[in-house]
């Protein structure tokens, strides 16, 4: 076990190095100041406290979608509608924030709750199609993304838009609904605390409640779960509903914590980011904030590199792609791992032999 952890750390570090080496090739090709670029990419994000707040701020939505994906992937449900439900959750929260006057704090809570519930309800579509008809949740969730987007933009444009604004956006949220900032003079809101609290809750839910247990068992061995008396269909629905709930909540928290109006007219991409970090976190909610931090850190590094050197914006997606590709490579250094394993097995055998020999001698 310990050996495994050690190996994982070595592998992680080595794959990051390799990824950076590949990224560096690109940087050297296009930049006149490659070392400066690299410095900005890697060290830059740690040079100012302000950057830390930015990193934390950008973690917020992807922690939620990442958690949602974790819950669904743990039950082996390949649902990709985090994207659409986050968007729609944000819209619903905005609507409540604008049109439903309420006292402070309560307003925020009501916004988040309604947004989460609506997003969760939307997830019933892929979930029920799966359990009732056996339709692939991947297809229906992908389509659901576009449906929610178009529906959301329709609602925004035809029923919520502030016509005095130059771009299509909603009216201003009531102040009571806005999530206050955590660090003064930054955009880092209390959303990060909510996100971390949700991480703890989801971890608790997954590992310390009967529902989480059922979800995990369904994912690990569905036949076994069914045979044990776990209600498989209900669990499949539950995990997707929770997935929707979390991403809807993420949308609400992001919108109320970062914006003063609802401004999205496309899918903001946090759903795919959620999938990425859930895979990096191996579907364990506890690791989600770390994976989200890593992703957010990387983006901040890229931004700084773009701001302070001559590396153009488009490079960033290339560098990110390369880093994720290598970072998630399981088989990387596999030969080395096999050697470790063989060595371990041999040691164990030798030990046993020694013990056996002793026992033999005693007898």
């Amino acid at each position, binding site marked *: 076990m310990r050996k495994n952890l050690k190996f994982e750390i070595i592998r992680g570090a080595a794959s990051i190095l390799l990824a950076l080496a590949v990224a560096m090739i690109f940087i050297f*090709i*296009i*930049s*006149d100041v490659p070392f400066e670029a690299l410095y900005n990419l890697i060290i830059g994000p740690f040079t100012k406290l*302000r950057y830390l707040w*930015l990193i934390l*701020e*950008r973690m917020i939505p992807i922690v939620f979608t990442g958690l949602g994906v974790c819950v669904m992937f743990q039950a082996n449900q390949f649902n990709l509608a985090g994207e659409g439900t986050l968007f729609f959750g944000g819209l619903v929260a905005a609507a409540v924030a604008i049109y439903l006057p309420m006292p402070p704090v309560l307003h925020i809570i009501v916004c988040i709750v309604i947004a989460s519930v609506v997003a969760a309800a939307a997830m019933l579509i892929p979930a029920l199609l799966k359990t009732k008809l056996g339709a692939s949740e991947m297809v229906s969730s992908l389509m659901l993304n576009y449906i929610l987007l*178009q529906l959301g*933009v329709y609602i925004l*444009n035809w029923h919520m838009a*502030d*016509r*005095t*604004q*130059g*771009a*299509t956006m909603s009216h201003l949220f009531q102040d009571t609904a806005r999530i206050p900032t955590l660090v003064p*003079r930054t*955009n880092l809101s209390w959303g990060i605390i909510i996100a971390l609290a949700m991480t703890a809750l989801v971890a608790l839910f997954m590992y310390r409640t009967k529902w989480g247990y059922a979800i995990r068992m369904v994912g690990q061995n569905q036949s076994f779960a069914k045979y044990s008396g776990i209600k498989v269909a209900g669990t499949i629905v539950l995990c997707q509903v929770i997935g929707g709930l979390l991403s809807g909540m993420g949308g609400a928290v992001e919108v109320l914590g*970062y914006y*003063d*109006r609802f*401004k*999205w*007219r*496309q*899918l*903001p*991409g*946090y759903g795919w980011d959620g999938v990425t970090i859930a895979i990096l976190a191996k579907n364990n909610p506890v690791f989600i904030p770390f994976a989200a931090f890593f992703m957010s850190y990387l983006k901040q590094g890229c*931004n*700084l590199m*773009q*701001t302070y050197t*001559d*590396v*153009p*914006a488009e490079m960033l997606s290339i560098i990110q792609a390369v880093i994720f590709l290598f970072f998630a490579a399981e088989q990387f250094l596999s030969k080395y791992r096999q050697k470790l394993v063989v060595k371990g097995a041999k040691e164990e055998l030798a030990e046993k032999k020694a013990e056996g020999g002793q026992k033999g001698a005693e007898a």
Partner: protein
Amino acid sequence: GGGNGGNTSTPSNNPSTPADNGGSAPSGSEPLKVANVVNGNLGDKSFFDSCEAGLKKLQDDGVITYKTFELGATDADQPKWVSTLDELSADGSYDLIVCGTYQMDAILNDCAAKYPDQKYFIYDAEVAQPNVASITFKQNDLGYLVGTAAALMTTSSMEKINPEKVIGFVGGEDGPVINDFLTGFIQGAQAADPEVKIDTQYVGNFYDTGKGKEIANVMVNNKCDVIWGVAGGAGNGAAEAAAEKDIWFIGVDSDQEATFSANQPQMAAVTIFSGLKNCGDGIIYMMGKLKDGSIEWGKTTQLGIAEGGVGLTSGGNFAKLPDNIKKALDDVAPKVTSGEIKVDTAFDESFDIKGLRDSVRP
């Protein structure tokens, strides 16, 4: 090989440029250090490129040195717009930060308040802060001119023109800026000939060229013979359809006939003219005021037809317009400028763009 590629858009900052205190407008011949924040991508052949071209010209003339920050156009990029603007303001080494679009106004509003010593230009939007100068364009006036021309074209005996009085408008999104163009377009067309019908359709984004083309094809089926594409890259799809179906296309923002003529002659051939929104000229105009000290911080400068902020291209295929249309345009333009012709704007909350749109549908 590609070593110089990355530099063209980001000319090196002149390290000898002293970091000004940024408080007062720097005087004399010292070039200003400018940051150009693009909340999208260059290459739109539209106002980001136009603004970039204006800055480039100013740099070539030794008025400024500048660096462009392209931040991407997606909604997930929005936080990056905020953080970069903040970063550049905090950095303090730029004399002036230029940005644009209505998507940036609230962001700049906060940022400008936070950094009162930093000076900003915002184009195509308004920000009421004492350290910001705003530049807006009367795209509804522009729309009026284009609408006038288009309506007269579809009723004319020009080549490619059918007997039906129908023209088309391909919008990127059903949003205020696009609809501001549209408002003028419809009103101009109706004023020219009340029988003209206007088929308005939106792509839903600014990049799905395929969809732009399909929509334009549908318009051709609906008997449109003049189509105005106001949809960024997706508008090119409409131009493709126009070329294939041999009808007239009207460009937007930049001289699209010139752009197409490089490699897509068929599309250039059907582009009769383009409705321009001259961000670059606007920036140059404002920079002049900054240099001579006549700039009014905290105010909005509206650039219309008279200021050269909006207008039609007059080269290339424009010559093919019958004289009566050219004359009509010459008639209408001063009236619009003077306010004799009142063009509605989609920014007015009480204005019913949806009703207008549906009332003229073919």
